[in-house]
């Protein structure tokens, strides 16, 4: 009974760690080791390796999702994808992904770009930010825990609506 209680306490404590972790300093990330998650050849030198799937180091991190949300605007992803609904580019809230919807596929798509308009971001923006974007895109599809996903964003109007009190201010 006591062990069960201790276990529960540990679980409750740990449940928060991943979600609330705030890596402000990016750890070295092993992303350069694989070039493509969508494999183009079935052959592997040195025999069959266990199927290596790189995972998102920021998976389930609320902070990373929020950073991804910010970068999505800063890097103007919303220019083509709008807020996930799609525009010039395909929507990002969907079931069927053209190039695969796993974190590794999404990473690959952002790094390498895709035909018909998706630019190559690899080398232009840091890898850790690409992973943050991946986390955000997955959160838009409810593939991240609800407790780590922001429910909405403040899309702040560019045109302020209310005037103030200092005399002589006309606009």
């Amino acid at each position, binding site marked *: 009974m006591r062990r069960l209680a201790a276990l529960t306490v540990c679980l409750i404590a740990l449940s928060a760690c991943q979600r609330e972790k705030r890596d*402000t300093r*990016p750890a070295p990330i092993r992303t350069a080791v694989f070039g493509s998650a969508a494999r183009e050849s079935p052959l592997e030198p040195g025999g069959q390796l266990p199927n290596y799937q790189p995972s998102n180091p920021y998976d389930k991190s609320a902070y990373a999702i929020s950073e991804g949300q910010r970068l999505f605007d*800063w*890097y103007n992803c919303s220019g083509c994808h709008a807020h996930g609904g799609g525009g010039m580019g395909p929507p990002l809230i969907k079931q069927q992904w053209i190039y695969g919807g796993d974190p590794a596929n999404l990473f690959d798509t952002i790094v390498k770009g895709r035909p018909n308009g998706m630019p190559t971001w690899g080398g*232009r923006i840091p890898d850790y930010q690409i992973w943050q974007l991946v986390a955000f895109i997955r959160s838009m599809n409810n593939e991240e825990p609800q407790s780590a996903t922001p429910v909405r964003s*403040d899309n702040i109007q560019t045109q*302020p609506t209310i005037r103030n009190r200092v005399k002589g201010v006309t606009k």
Partner: protein
Amino acid sequence: MSAWGTPYQSAVNAAGPQSGRIETLFWVFTILLAIIFVIVIVVLLLTLTRRHRGIQQEPLEQTHIPSGATEHRLTRTVAAATIVTVVVLLGLLVASVGTGKAISGLGTARNGLAVEVIGNQWWWYVRYLNDDASRIVTTANEIHIPVGRPVMIRGTSHDVIHSFWVPNLNGKIDFIPSRVNAQWIEADYPGRFRGQCAEFCGIQHAHMALWVVAEPPDRFEAWMNHQLEPAAAPSDADSQQGQQVFLNHACIFCHTIAGTAALGSAGPDLTHFASRSTIAAGTLPNTKGNLAGWIADPQNIKPGNHMATVALDSADVQPLIDYLESLK
């Protein structure tokens, strides 16, 4: 007094008409209230130490209430003290409202300068407004103002609520998303005044400072004209390489250098970066060493800030620093 702060970020070292009036009001309040405080404490001490001569004959242990005459005297005293309190407060109210009106009247009559300031997590976007679009200057974290001319600070925020505060010049004004707030500032003499965000705005609230540089009008004009020019072209191979490093990395997504392909607006404008005295919103003096440290690991100096940690080849770092520091 040096252990108690600096004169250049201080509400009691007024450098302009607005803050001057507030400082006068402050001393009026302080002196008057200090006198009241001393009186109350003296009465308290007398109360605690007096030997109760007048009521010695009254058997308080039995009656628990002094004679009617004593109570009557007390009533009159307390009523008088209350009336004095009311009068003093009324006077202070008049002084306060009067000062407020006087301050809001300053600056509107004369031909002022309008500066737009936008708070961001955790830096200040600065733009000098002008009807002539070609004379609009954009900079960050440092506001130059001409001495003796009122300057209107109009501000809002791009993200959360910030508060603009340069205590030597005026009180605070909140910058709130979706609203525009404004205040007038004016400097009586040349000098450098520091300001700081006063509304808690997230993890790096502590490192969101700005400088106001008050200059004689001619020097201000010269500064303004220089700021209007595009960025200096790289003059040597080293700087040229630095420019290429800048343009080929994530820098350009967030920063603008007028005259190049860098047009990002998420971070401070770097067109005349080297003419500013600090980096990272007043966090560090603008030197080559500090800049190198900042670019190599921005999260070390200001953990949680939004500057990307860009992995640079070691050979690229020095040219980039040289290039940025050439942007006078």
